[in-house]
């Protein structure tokens, strides 16, 4: 089997398409190029294997790489609803914008979005042992960023925007992990219930540095400029946001 496989996805339904990708992965193909992708959902859904690269030309549909563990996917185009949903490991690099719920419940791996994301990005993101999910967004996020976040790192850079988040409810119910926003002052963040906004310090910058550098490498941005910008950090105001709501019968 060749090292590289090119599939023209034009008109192919997602199930046969995924079968081809799984088959390629099983036979040791190192790179799969999907041409003419147009709205096929669930690409690489549940795919587990390391060391395979998937290049997507076009616009993948919802739940791209859901439950995926291992592969690296690069999308040359926008992505629909919930790329990286409940992802376990691997990498997703999107040269464009995405719809809502990107990285929903993501437990491991990294997602980089060059432009904007929709509502509820990073919702329920969680960490476990060595797994620390990372979502980096170059442009802007809409409301409810990082709600119920339980672990991991979420960075929004707001490049070419007035504000990295256009909306409210940042980090409602957050009880783990941290959200980093560039070029915004703490009082301008509409933080949700249970979220606390502080100014990021040097230590924080060290934490996000490797991911910022990755972002710059993938999308050709200037690391110096980004690393020298001010960031705020949104963290849980308590580890138990709802502990005090209940009494017993």
């Amino acid at each position, binding site marked *: 089997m060749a090292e590289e496989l090119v599939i023209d996805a034009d008109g192919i339904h997602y199930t046969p398409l995924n079968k081809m990708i799984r088959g390629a992965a099983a036979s040791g193909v190192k790179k799969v190029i999907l041409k003419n992708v147009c709205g096929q959902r669930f690409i690489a859904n549940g795919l587990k294997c390391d060391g395979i690269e998937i290049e997507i030309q076009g616009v993948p549909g919802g739940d791209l790489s859901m439950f995926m563990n291992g592969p690296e996917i690069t999308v040359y185009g926008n992505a629909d609803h919930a790329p990286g949903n409940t992802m376990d490991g691997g990498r997703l690099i999107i040269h464009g914008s995405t719809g809502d719920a990107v990285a*929903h419940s993501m437990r491991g791996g990294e997602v980089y979005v060059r432009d904007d994301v929709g509502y509820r990005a990073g919702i329920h993101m969680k960490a476990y042992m060595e797994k620390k999910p990372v979502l980096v967004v170059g442009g802007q996020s809409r409301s409810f960023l990082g709600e*119920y976040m339980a*672990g991991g790192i979420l960075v929004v850079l707001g490049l070419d925007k007035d504000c990295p988040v256009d909306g409210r409810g940042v980090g409602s119910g957050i009880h783990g992990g941290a959200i980093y926003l560039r070029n915004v002052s703490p009082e301008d963040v509409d933080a949700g219930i249970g979220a606390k906004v502080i100014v990021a310090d040097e230590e924080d910058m060290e934490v996000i540095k490797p991911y910022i550098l990755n972002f710059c490498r993938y999308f050709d941005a200037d690391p110096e400029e980004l690393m020298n910008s001010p960031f705020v950090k949104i963290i849980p105001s308590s580890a138990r946001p709802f*502990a005090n709501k209940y009494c017993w019968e």
Partner: protein
Amino acid sequence: MSIGSVPVKFKVTIDNDRCMLCERCIENCSYGVFRREGQKIVPDSRKCTACHRCVAMCPRDAIDLEEKPNDYRSHPLWTREAREAIYNQAKSGKIILSGMGNALDYPIIFDRLVLDACQVTNPSIDPLREPMELRTYIGKKPERINIKKNNSGDYDLNTEIAPNLKLETPVMIGHMSYGAISLNAQKALAKAVSSVGTFMGTGEGGLHKDLYPYQSNMIVQVASGRFGVDINYLERGAAIEIKIGQGAKPGIGGHLPGEKVAEDVSKTRMIPLHSDAISPAPHHDIYSIEDLVQLVRSLKEATEWKKPVFVKIAAVHNVAAIAAGIARSSADAVVIDGFKGGTGAAPRVFRDHVGMPVEVAIATVDKILREQGIRNEVSVIASGGIRDSADVTKAVALGADAVYIGTAALIAMGCRVCGSCYRGLCPWGIATQRPELVSRLNPDEAAVNVANLINGWTLELAELMGAAGINSIESLRGNRDRLRGYMLDEGILDVLDVKMIGA
């Protein structure tokens, strides 16, 4: 202090003539009711939850336990419960949490439906001598099948059959997660379902590795928090269930407090030690029936279309329309959980007041699916307050393919329905993660009890069917002619599509 304390709910007394001071009551009571003072055991009744562990363990029958020994002035409207809830909230300003099922005195529809039996003509069937077909397949059924004669004169099936679960009895065990119940309790249930040829749900707590040997009898759950969900977990399950709602608390999510997320629970749920496991009601990638379709298909795609996918909803007012949407979503079964369903913890106001009885939900769902010609697209699984084989029989006659039991399975393991599960101190080792309490439940013995219960019900079901002249569960399903309403009004009978007694 203006309110002061309320009277004790239960009164515990020790018969000192019988007591031999063995102190087993002290050891067994996780709520700390008993202490020894000199030559006497002294109970503190205020701490008692009526879990009955002491009564069960006392070798001398020396313990007496009474409910409500000290009452308020009686009043039909301002009951003890109503008053005490007000005192509680006047002091705390919080949401009152409660455990187990609905505690209000609603009429139970199952008890007002009576089953039929044959007499002289069309005689009954004797299940001892005649084969009774209780095997149940859960999943999509083809609208019609195509068969073709092949060269050897045999017939080939040319219709592709969707994956189905094969049950030897229409009784399954519903989803109670590791975290809500102990690992020993889950193991006991898993052993039981494997031995009787049925299935149980994992709940949304992941699948502990000790349960891997039973995975072919387990239905893995995906809820909004996606705890413990990864591709390996999905592949292990015999089926996958998306939990949207739960009968004891429709419209409410789950919340396992951080203090219950001990080492093993954290591993199984794949979340850090002692972090809260918050699982709100909405799935944040589902905001429409189309989004549900997307999740159903995503789960199928991830597991290469080899597993049935169920969708569980609470029985609410427009349940039939919702179920019809689910039937069209590519899902293989709809689970309807009625408002008498149990739970480890629910706000009392939800547990008692939201939703509707599962009897009505089954009947209306079955009816709308038939009317729309899509009854074959999904199986209907009913749960929420199924107490005995008569309830199972009636549920099937109203249109269910199978039932889930929860509380009944826990009772088979010793649960006394004390309703204090949310405190994590279950003295029976069921709803607790404390090692010293968990070890009280022997999974092998408890498995036998649960298997016995299901076997007993299955025998009774066969007898009830035989009496009604029915030898196959298929012929009982949706067979409302075998039911009559007794003391039910015309409106309910109409909704149930069941005739009045005598008719």
